[in-house]
């Protein structure tokens, strides 16, 4: 078997396959960009978050409405059904009279916005 030197080997290889010319980088990137602009792009951007925002907004609105209702119930335990102006009158829950009397009247005057407890027929008088 004939042995060949390194120099001969290099010459043989060059003859068989000439060294390819390295393309210029700017030409490569120019072609790449031109091709990339024609391709549909895949982006990593998320779709807008509006659809996910609605449940939170709905919950917030429900909370606000609930709190307002709570405040109304706490502040006005009786519904204002007995007053022309829409506001409840003061109320008499219990009444005991410890002196002789004929009758007792409890009146609610919606127009004037007052409550009146009137005892009639009492005999005791005071001097003034």
């Amino acid at each position: 078997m004939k042995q060949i030197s390194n120099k001969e080997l290099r010459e043989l290889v060059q003859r068989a396959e000439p060294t390819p010319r390295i393309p210029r980088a700017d030409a490569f990137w120019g072609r790449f960009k031109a091709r990339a602009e024609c391709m549909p792009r895949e982006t990593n951007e998320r779709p807008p978050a509006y659809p996910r925002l609605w449940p939170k907004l709905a919950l917030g609105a429900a909370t606000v409405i609930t709190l307002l209702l709570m405040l109304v119930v706490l502040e006005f335990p009786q519904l204002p059904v007995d007053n022309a102006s829409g506001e409840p009158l003061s109320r008499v829950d219990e009444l005991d009279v410890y002196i002789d009397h004929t009758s007792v009247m409890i009146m609610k005057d919606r127009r004037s916005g007052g409550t009146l407890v009137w005892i009639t027929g009492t005999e005791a008088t005071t001097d003034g």
Partner: protein
Amino acid sequence: MAKHGARSHVKTILTTMLAAALLWTASAMAQDYGSARRTVEIRFVRADNKKADETEEALADILPLLRQNLRFTRYRLISRRTVALSEGQRIPLAYGYTLNFSNVQSQALTVHIFRQQQMLLRTRLRLKSRRPVLLGGFPHAGDSTLIAVLKLMED
């Protein structure tokens, strides 16, 4: 992904419920605190059928109520006091009449009216702001009648 979303919603709902509970408690506490600042204006009025002179400015707010429901021609202010809506108030009116507060709960209270040492009346009232309650019909000298007027005042 869906599991994560559901967990997130549960978390939001729980947070909302907790916030609502805290606000409810704060509101209730604020209401109790507010009761300490409530006052009751107490006026003692003498009514008779003598000729009406000048209109009492101090009774202007309750004159429609008096005139609408009672048949007196004249109403005169005898005394006027403003006291805190609190337990154990003892308010001297006039002519030996005294008014006591007890069992005060928020805007509800029990009122006793005494003449000298004699209890005349006991009533449980639920007062509304600026809505007066008149307790009257106590006969007095000269065919006049005495009326106690209670009015809750709030800021």
